[in-house]
């Protein structure tokens, strides 16, 4: 199961400058696990060491925002777009 992970500009240096990368996995959790195996520094910008998505990171699967408990079980279809972005927070 292959999908595209779309990265915001601040994270692209951690993916050799790529704006999007191909990732594997049939759920959002599996996608992040695949990322952790290949690009662990990038993955930990998105998830903490418990595997939880960081509080100010937004994740969209095919345009639908996913949040909260159980979000890592969200199905990711073949060819899907997984979009990550910083929340409008911080300073």
């Amino acid at each position: 199961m292959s999908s595209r992970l779309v990265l915001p500009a601040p994270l692209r240096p951690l993916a050799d400058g790529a704006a999007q990368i191909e990732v594997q996995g049939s759920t959002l959790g599996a996608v992040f696990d695949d990322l952790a195996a290949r690009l662990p520094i990038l993955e930990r910008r998105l998830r903490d060491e418990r595997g939880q998505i960081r509080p100010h990171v937004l994740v969209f699967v095919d345009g639908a925002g996913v949040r909260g408990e159980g979000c890592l079980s969200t199905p990711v279809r073949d060819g899907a777009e997984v979009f990550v972005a910083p929340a409008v927070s911080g300073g």
Partner: protein
Amino acid sequence: MARALLMIGTRKGLLIARSDDSRRTWTLDELRFPNQEVYAVGIDSRCDPPRLFASGTFGWWGPFFTHSDDLGATWAESRQAAIAFPAEAETALARVWQIQPGPPNQPGVVYAGVEPHALFRSDDGGESFSLVRGLWDHPHRSEWRPGNGGACLHTVIPHPTDPAQCLVAMSTGGVYRTEDGGATWNPRNRGIEVSFAPEDARFPEYGQCVHKVAMHPDRPSRLFAQNHGGVYRSEDGGDEWTAIETGLPSNFGFPMVVHPQQPDTVFAFPLGEGRLPSDTRCRVYRSQDAGATWHPVNEGLPEEPYLGGVLRDAMCTDWADPAGLFFGTRIGEVFWSRDGGESWGQVAQRLPDVLSVRAAEFQ
């Protein structure tokens, strides 16, 4: 001439000031890690060239921990997170507050004090760290509370000669010391007052909001502490503390620094109302008799009303001879003295809020 560098962690990134003329003049590198809050910087002078450490947090992307072996030209972050809580801890690293290389007789040892209250130890020079379980499993831990800045373990003082001993300080929690290499830890807060507690609860065994502790390596039994209201000295490694605030304009502040060549000389930066500099003056206070008397040392510092305080890790020495003393303020100015505080010059200005400084001289 000797070279020197000063790491300046700010709320918006890391700056490095460099001197190639024995610390007479300084030039500033471009900002690194923009938009990162660089709460902790460290210099391991046991390495040649010194290994630099920096850790910060990005509002969205969590903490990072990185090091440089070429004096800051390039930085490396470990593929696997250098500092991470094990799964059974059921928490996540929020921030690194302190990076403390071990003494010369403990090669490779580097400590990190973090938020939530925990101590990590590296035995490979800071490439990877392990949680110090003896402190994490301490029965008091559930009663340690966050200070205003967070639930931080902000001070780590390894004993200069005995690898079994180490002292930490937390806001809030207070001072704890191990004498068995970190397996067990005991509170060492007797005499430190919690001034905001009810009258009959002002001297608890633990729970104090100690802001910083300092020690001179030639005299490890003597400690100085800047508390959240109160300045103290211990002559027995923290077993008992005695107030030494007489002569200071305020007993509140954050940093506490010992002169590297003069174990009786200690520096503080008192804060008054609103956590602004006491009397809104940019004044370092120096004691040359281990806290018996204090005097302001401010020649060369701004004369006009000054609204920039100094945070707990924003003052340091460089351990050179003559010693350099440095501090950065919350309004982005960095000052330095190379004569024990008698006179001051400005290293940098118009920076973001300064959170941490560390300096070293090297060949």
